[in-house]
């Protein structure tokens, strides 16, 4: 079913958690809400499920105003990060729960429920787990059961709150693929929350990037990756190097910077900020370079360097150790950005940096 969110706001005391959210989700779509913790994505999900209530705004699903409905009446399949399987019920009974608690008039016959559960167990590829208790399952298996329990009620919308957050990297990747298959077969409108951009990009039809209670950008993985709409999105996607530049005739200029690889931009002349991924910077050792190498660390495959430029500008670069030029501490270099994004205005160092993406990438590959 299609879902419309209009100008939704929510505050907890003094804190504005949602500051006017507008979102359209098409029927059968798989949408990711991506953002750092505290961006309000889980609150939005809980409001859709009826587990939290907005202070203002509208929520319409399949033409019905859901703010008039209790959580019990909405038929959302909610999957929690920590599964929330009922510990005293076997897998079979967990999945059947939503059907067995329907009021007598609508409740299917026990045989129908049993058949439906059996079908779901096969559909989710877990028929062998039917008679186990949740404590006897691994994390990945529990999350499959949790999804089965949510799907059993034929939900109007399937909502997943960091569904793979508590699992290790390998299981997470397997489940991601599996969830995509399940979604494509079941065709349920699905919204899932994550702070892992790789997960959001790989899994979702569309990604909604949220920051501090606002939607920063909506688009496909490629759109967002190639054209971040704001400095916030750029930082969140790992463009963590910010260098103050001056725009002149569509070109960014700064001391110690060789911007010949960057295309011209249709931007007004004046101060701007160049956002770069550490891996998109080539280092050219040069005696007149304006950046000085202050730190060299190796991860085995990669060499990570920190440099200090004019006016306390800090830069970080990452390059394959194999291809790295001979570099030493204190050496001066010129930076040549290969790809980058320019936003008007000076850098605002006061803003806290969001989750640094390169670190999580290293962590994953080292497992």
């Amino acid at each position, binding site marked *: 079913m299609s879902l419309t969110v209009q100008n939704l706001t929510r505050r907890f005391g003094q804190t504005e958690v949602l500051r006017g959210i507008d979102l359209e989700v098409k029927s059968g779509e798989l949408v990711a809400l991506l953002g750092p913790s505290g961006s309000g994505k889980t609150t939005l999900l809980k409001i859709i*499920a*009826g*587990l939290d209530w907005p202070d203002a705004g509208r929520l319409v699903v399949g033409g019905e105003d859901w703010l008039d409905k*209790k*959580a*019990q*009446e*909405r*038929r*959302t*399949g*909610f999957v*929690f990060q*920590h599964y*929330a399987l*009922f*510990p*005293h*019920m*076997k897998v079979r009974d967990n999945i059947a*729960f*939503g059907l067995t*608690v*329907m009021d007598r008039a609508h409740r299917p016959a026990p045989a129908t429920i049993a058949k439906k559960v059996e079908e779901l167990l096969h559909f989710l590829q877990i028929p062998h787990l039917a008679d*186990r*208790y*949740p*404590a*006897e399952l691994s994390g990945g298996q529990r999350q499959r059961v949790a999804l089965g*329990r*949510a799907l059993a*009620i034929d939900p109007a919308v399937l909502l997943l709150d960091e569904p793979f957050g508590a699992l290790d990297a390998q299981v997470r990747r397997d489940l991601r693929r599996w969830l995509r298959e399940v979604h494509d077969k079941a065709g349920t409108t699905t919204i899932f929350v994550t702070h892992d951009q790789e997960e959001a990009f790989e899994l979702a039809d569309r990604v909604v990037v949220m920051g501090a209670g606002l939607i920063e950008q909506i688009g496909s993985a490629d759109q967002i990756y190639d054209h971040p709409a704001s400095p916030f999105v750029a930082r969140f996607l790992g463009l963590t190097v910010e260098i103050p530049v001056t725009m002149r005739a569509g070109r960014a200029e700064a001391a110690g910077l060789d911007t010949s690889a960057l295309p011209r931009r249709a931007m007004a002349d004046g101060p701007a900020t160049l956002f770069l991924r550490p891996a998109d910077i080539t280092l050219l050792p040069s005696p007149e370079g304006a950046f000085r190498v202050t730190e060299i660390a190796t991860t085995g495959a990669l060499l990570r360097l920190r440099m200090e430029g004019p006016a306390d500008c800090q830069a970080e670069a990452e390059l394959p150790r194999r291809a790295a030029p001979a570099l030493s501490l204190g050496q001066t270099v010129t930076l040549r950005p290969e790809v980058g994004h320019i936003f008007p205005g000076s850098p605002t160092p006061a803003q806290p940096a969001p989750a640094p993406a390169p670190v999580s990438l290293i962590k994953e590959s080292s497992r």
Partner: protein
Amino acid sequence: MTSASLPASAKRSKRVLPGFGLTMGVTLTYLGVIVLLPVIALVLKGAEIGPARFWAIATAPRTLAALQLTLTAAAMATVFNAIYGVLMAWVLVRYNFPGRRLLDALVDIPFALPTAVAGLALSALFAANGWYGAILEPMGIQVVFTIWGVAAAMAFTSIPFVIRTVQPVLEDLDPQYEEAARTLGAHPFTIFRRVVFPAIFPALLVGITLSFARSLGEFGAVIFIAGNLPFKTEIASLLAVIRLEEYDYNGAAVIALTLLIIALVLLAISNILQARALRYRGKTG
């Protein structure tokens, strides 16, 4: 250091607190002297009497009446405590209201209060001219000198058991279970019956058992309100005291032993039920 001595020292260093041998020794000795020895002495005393005579004393009309009253009143008190205790624990855990901490502290009063004081206060309240009695007596309900009084005194002294065993479990119960149940369409009463109650049931069982066992042995609070009429409102432990004062040591021992057996059987049943209720925790839990 040789490789052979390494595991031994590593093993020793695993214990954070030193003195395991000493502390365990002290604990076991104390347990033996204070708890085990008197129980064994009681059992031996009972065995001395011989089965036939034991049976004769235990089934004497006055003993039977006392045991029956004690068990019935304890059961009544426990049923009341089970319901009220869960309610109270629920209120203390789930709602935030001014005076919650005070209420929480009040729960322990029955434990802290000398039972004789509790008994005196209860009989004063329920007496014909007391606050409660003045209302109840005209309605034809007499509490003092009846089984109701016995049950009321027992309920009073044992209520904290249920509250204090259920409360922490309810506190630890992740609200996500209830949220999950809500999104799956379950209404509040169904959620309590199928999600919350099974979670607190094992703890409730412990509370009920303790509450019942305490009620069986309650003495101080009961004798003030019961009136202690033989065959009517005389509880088993009081009868044991009376037998003792009559220098009828065997009579006293038989009653005490019977109470002990009932309590132990109850404890065993409770443990079995608890194990069954917790079987879902699996091998890993």
